[in-house]
């Protein structure tokens, strides 16, 4: 699998990351190497094997529908980089 600089830029955009132009080549090569190693999995025929997403046999755990005390809004906002009147604030969402 060949990974181009444009592929790296596209995936970075999906992941909300940015790379300096100089780093793109190095990153593309590293990803290519790693993904090439992953191709090893294609040696196995798995068409009749169920995927494992989780090792435990799980059912949805249920509990009584009662309110438990948890963080106050002040506590939840304590680590906010910016806040205003009990809300998190962010830069403008709708671009011009």
């Amino acid at each position: 699998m060949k990974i181009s600089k444009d592929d790296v830029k596209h995936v970075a955009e999906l992941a909300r990351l940015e790379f300096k132009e100089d780093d793109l080549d190095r990153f593309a090569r590293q990803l290519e190497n790693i993904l090439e190693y992953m191709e090893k999995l294609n040696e196995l025929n798995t068409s009749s094997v169920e995927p494992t997403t989780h090792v435990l046999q799980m059912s949805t755990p249920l509990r009584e529908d009662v309110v438990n005390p948890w963080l106050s809004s002040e506590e939840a906002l304590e680590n906010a980089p910016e806040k205003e009147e009990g809300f998190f604030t962010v830069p403008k969402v709708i671009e011009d």
Partner: protein
Amino acid sequence: MELPFLTIRELSLLLKRKEVSPVEVTKTILDRIDGIEGKVHAYISILREESLKASKRAEELISSGDYIGTLHGVPIGVKDIFVMKGTRTTCGSKILENFAPPYDATIVERLKNAGAIVVGKNNMDEFAMGSSTENSYFGPTRNPWDLERVPGGSSGGSAAAVSASLCFASIGTDTGGSIRQPAAFCGITGLKPTYGRVSRFGMIAFASSLDQGGPLTKTVEDAALMLNVFAGGDNKDSTSVHVPVPDYVSHLNGEIKGIRVGVPKEYFIKGIDFEVEKAVKKAIELVEDLGCSIEEITLPHTEYAVSSYYIIAPSEASSNLARYDGVRYGLRVPDSNSLRDMYNRTRAEGFGAEVKRRIMIGTYALSAGYYDAYYLKAQRVRTLIKRDFEEAFKKVDVIMTPTSPEAAFKIGEKTDDPLKMYLSDIFTIPCNLAGLPGIAIPCGFTSNGLPIGLQILGKPFDEETILRVAHAYEIHTNWSEKRPPI
């Protein structure tokens, strides 16, 4: 023996008999940290005031006759991946450099309730992604046995701190070997419990279907003592399992006659260091002498574990780490002209190279057109690896292997080649994919004085048997009594 070098068991007898006080012990450990932490760098934060305060409370309880139990007054370290109320918790990352969580992780809460005293937060690879602790934003930890070498990772700060007697035990996390491999590199005991045995609440998520917390200690008995305190279901973690927790210590009787030990041929391959192979084979001979039966087994899909893991773990990580967006906590790069710009710049500046690499691999593997070829394929292979173990455990009770194909490597040796670093987890990863418990214990030294680790894997929720076998091996050897010359 001097106070810092004692095991939890030994120290607890002195504390209980009031021959030493929690304040005295805590001060001794803080003094030792002052003396040699500069060389090792096992901690990101040292909790001087907090631990002294906690030790005074522990002391008051003991003097008024309220001795809680074995961990009462025992100074421990906590990997900086576990949140602690009001205490800076960084996960080794710039993006959480100034994060002070508003609550305690369940493991931490249970340890505190048992009287343990947290002296500091241990260094780690950023977001637990790494095998050497070189990926910490706060600088690498050094191996106490050889300061030019890595302590392993990602719980390298925890392992180095226990090994250098900078705390009596620590808690770490293990997603693909991050407790066991550093324990092996630093010559101590590291236990990864069965997936679901220990609550993940308050443990910062890396790969949620693989992550599990566990103890790093000087001895097997100490690991059992720690697990006794924090194992068991938790309503705050819906993947923790509500099954009875046995008393892990009471089964450590040195008696292992009749236990069936499997030795998988796929773990003794070309490329494994010959001194490591020799030490592990000698350990297997010893347990045979102690009455175990040894059987060669096969785990045929072992060679696919690293590929499967390095798709599944980064995929889960790319999703988990989406939460670091500069909005609710952590770093925000100021002066952005839009929300999108703020996300991109904050994440570009806040994450280190390896974390970005994993987010990129995961995002790629989950993206449209590649999901079936990578993520789904890796999960199907995970099933095959899990089945290998299910077959093997029909015939044997435990499986013995090396923990790592080599002893501690030099700082900088593998940083330029991510794939080479990934392959150092080759013997620890299958256990996480299958959700099994595994323990690493010391079983010898290389000719240049580096510790070698033996790994014992068990059936799901059968920590008891691996602890019993590990303990029997330990009391018939003296590896766990060795301390680094620091």
